[in-house]
C-alpha cells in the first residue's frame, strides 16, 4: 500500500519540461562526432535505429 502511494509520486515528464533532458550532458556518449559514426554503423548493421539519445535525435523534441 505504502509502495503504491510512493510510486504515485512519480509523475511523468511533459514534452515541454524536457529542457534538462535535451542537454548534451544527458546523452551517454562523450564525443558527438564519434557518436554520429557509431550510430550510423549500428543502424546499418542492426537495420534499425534509435535509442541513443532522448527521442528526436537527442534533443528531446519531436
Amino acid at each position, binding site marked *: *500500500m505504502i*509502495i*503504491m*502511494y510512493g*510510486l*504515485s509520486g512519480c509523475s*511523468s515528464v*511533459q*514534452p*515541454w*519540461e*524536457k*529542457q534538462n533532458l*535535451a*542537454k548534451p550532458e544527458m546523452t551517454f556518449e562523450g564525443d558527438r562526432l564519434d557518436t554520429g559514426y557509431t550510430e550510423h554503423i549500428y543502424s546499418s548493421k542492426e537495420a534499425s535505429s534509435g535509442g541513443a539519445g532522448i527521442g*528526436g*535525435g537527442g*534533443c*528531446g*523534441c*519531436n
Partner: protein
Amino acid sequence: MIMKAFTLKKVKVGFITLVLSLGMSPNAHALGIGDKVADFSLLGKQGPVKLSDSAGSVVYLDFWASWCGPCRQSFPWMNEMQAKYSAKGFKVVAVNLDARNDDAMKFLAQNPANFTVAFDSKGQTPKAFGVKGMPTSFLIDKSGKILSVHLGFKPADKEEMEKQILSALGGN
C-alpha cells in the same frame, strides 16, 4: 489465514489505486482537428497576448522552447510566413515554454521573431492544448476551429504547411 486475507485486500486496493492514477493522465483530452480553441491570456513582448485578439485571422499557434533544435529551424520560416501573408489576415502566435525566461530571451536575441511571442513558463497552455512533442503547431481558422495539428518541424514540412495556410486563407 487472517494474514492471507489481509494481503489480498492490500493487493486489490493497490491495484485499483494504480489503475485510477494511470487513468488520470493530463493529456486525456488533447485538442484535435475540428475542436474549438480555448482562449488564453499570456505575457508577451509588450503587454498581454490573448488568443481571442486574433479572432477573425488565420492563426498559426506554435509551441516552442529555446532548447529545441527544430524550433530554431522553424523561426526563419515563421518569419517568412508572417511577412508573406499578414496582409491576408494571417497571424503567427508563438508560445514559449521555457521554464526560465532568460533562456527564451537569449534565443530570441539570436533568432529574431517578427511575429507575436507569448510566454508560458508554467506550461498551462500546452497542457490545455494537449501538446505531445516539441515543437507542436496548431493551424486555426478564422472562427477559432483547429484545421491541423503538426508535431515537430522539418524543412520538408514547409511546403505542405504553406499549402495548408494558403487554403485556410481562402486559396489563391
